[in-house]
């Protein structure tokens, strides 16, 4: 079953086409553009380019898989609304995968791994994994707090947040995976895809409340 995969939870604007079968998955095409400010401009043309490259037509798709974050909100929403609209337009199910889970599943070292992506504002989105399986809930914290809480129990770290704060985290950082890989996102949804599970509403993992500030230009009346 041919599946469109998208993830925009990190600066890597990620899209892929994956053939998911009972015998295993085959990645047909991948487009990754690293640009934290261009999710909205890059994602759709990258998907179109994959269609052109592979000769796949949208109507060939059987499902859409989306990384639901956590991730910086504006970019994250691009992937989720793209996936949701594709699913709606084609009448095919959408499935969500925690983006950190894709990194945790793709991490290949031994022992426990800290997965960390950049949450901006000097914080990271993070979770700990053992044998590819998450231990606890994803969270957003300052790197020093994360180091204090789990630094002693993890053997290594992956993800762009781990690279950025390697000094503070004081855990060996593995080069790859740095961003949620297409193959892992597809694999984590493969079971649902193959048994044609009911479609899931793609609910973003924001982990932060919205800043309740009114935009500039809407100042108090006096002073």
């Amino acid at each position, binding site marked *: 079953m041919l599946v469109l995969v998208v993830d925009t939870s990190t600066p890597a604007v990620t899209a892929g086409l994956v053939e998911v079968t009972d015998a295993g998955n085959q990645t047909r095409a991948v487009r990754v553009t690293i640009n934290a400010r261009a*999710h*909205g*401009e*890059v*994602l*759709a*043309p990258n*998907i*179109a380019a994959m269609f052109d490259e592979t000769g796949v037509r*949208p109507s060939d798709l059987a499902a859409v898989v989306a990384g639901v974050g956590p991730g910086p*909100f*504006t970019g994250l*929403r*691009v992937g*989720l*609304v*793209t*996936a*949701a*609209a*594709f*699913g*709606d*337009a*084609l009448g095919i199910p959408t499935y969500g995968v925690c983006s950190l889970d894709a990194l945790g599943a793709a991490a290949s070292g031994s022992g426990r791994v800290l997965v960390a992506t950049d949450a901006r504002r000097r914080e990271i989105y993070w979770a700990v994994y053992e044998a590819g399986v998450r231990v606890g809930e994803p969270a957003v914290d300052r790197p020093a707090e994360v180091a204090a809480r789990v630094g002693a129990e993890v053997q290594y770290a992956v993800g762009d947040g781990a690279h950025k704060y390697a000094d503070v985290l004081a855990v060996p950082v593995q080069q790859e995976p740095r961003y949620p890989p297409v193959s892992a996102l597809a694999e984590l949804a493969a079971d649902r895809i193959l048994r044609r599970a009911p479609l899931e509403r793609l609910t*973003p993992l*924001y982990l932060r409340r*919205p*800043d*309740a*500030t*009114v*935009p500039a*230009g*809407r100042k108090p*009346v*006096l002073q």
Partner: protein
Amino acid sequence: MTDEPIVLGIETSCDETGVGIVRGTTLLANVVASSVDEHARFGGVVPEVASRAHLEAMVPTVERALRTAGLTLADIDAIAVTAGPGLAGTLLVGVAAAKAYALATGKPLYGVNHLAAHVAVDTLEHGPLPEPAVALLVSGGHSSLLRVDDLARGVQPLGATIDDAAGEAFDKVARLLGLPFPGGPPIDRAAQSGDGSAIAFPRGLTAPRDMREHRFDFSFSGLKTAVARWVEARQRAGEPVPVADVAASFQEAVCDVLTAKAIDACRSQGIETLLIGGGVAANSRLRAMATERAARYGIQVRVPRPGLCTDNGAMVAALGTHLVSSGVPPSGLDIPADSALPVEVVSLAEKVA
């Protein structure tokens, strides 16, 4: 069967998730999901709250619009979306959704200007727009005077607010008077029983000196401050605030400036059609005053019904069918959401430089 194009329009420039479907100049569906209640306690639209609401509402709103029109996506000829101006984060949700719908269905995409869409929506009610026309667009996000020579290609700015949008002033004054957000409708209601000439509030940018440099520009910041000072002076003196008179006098000042400048624009350009749009166009005094003043000069005023004046998807779809019918090329999938899209850009053509 008809060969008029059918366009689905998506609007997310502020707090309304709007999806409309239009065939030619016939409205088939206009569905709006608003997050206005979530913003009320902040006294203004919170972009992140609005963006989250757009993501949740997008697909259900598209589905409701299609159901209302009795159509499927296969019946649609093109997807149009507001590319700007507006709030960057909220625009992006609509633009990304529109691209995905266009790509998944193989339909052309039109990224369009929100202000031009406010003009186009009038065609759904009053038919093709006589060109050239002057458009006065007033809402919580914009206050502009435009010259429309060719709605598909040529919109020129004549003037705009140099500080607050007119609708913002309504919101702020409503808050001062203890009226709910958004402030337009409650001020309009309160003003019905008030005296518009009770308090002489200032008319921004109408002094001779201002008229040289800012003949068609607006300023509502001074008015807003004047109302605040007047109300606070009353409160300090322990006197009751005559809400109806303040509302009516404030509304009179806003409408006086808006209509005077709009009619001056028509007369100076020799234009006989004045179109009024945007949320503030729902104001009853603005409609009445514009119609009365325009009649003196033989100027015809066109104002769409209130449901089409506020932000909605039908206006985007209406501009979309006009662009398709006019042979304007569609946009590429790489178009940005441009929060500061210039008013001259009616649609983002094939490739943006």
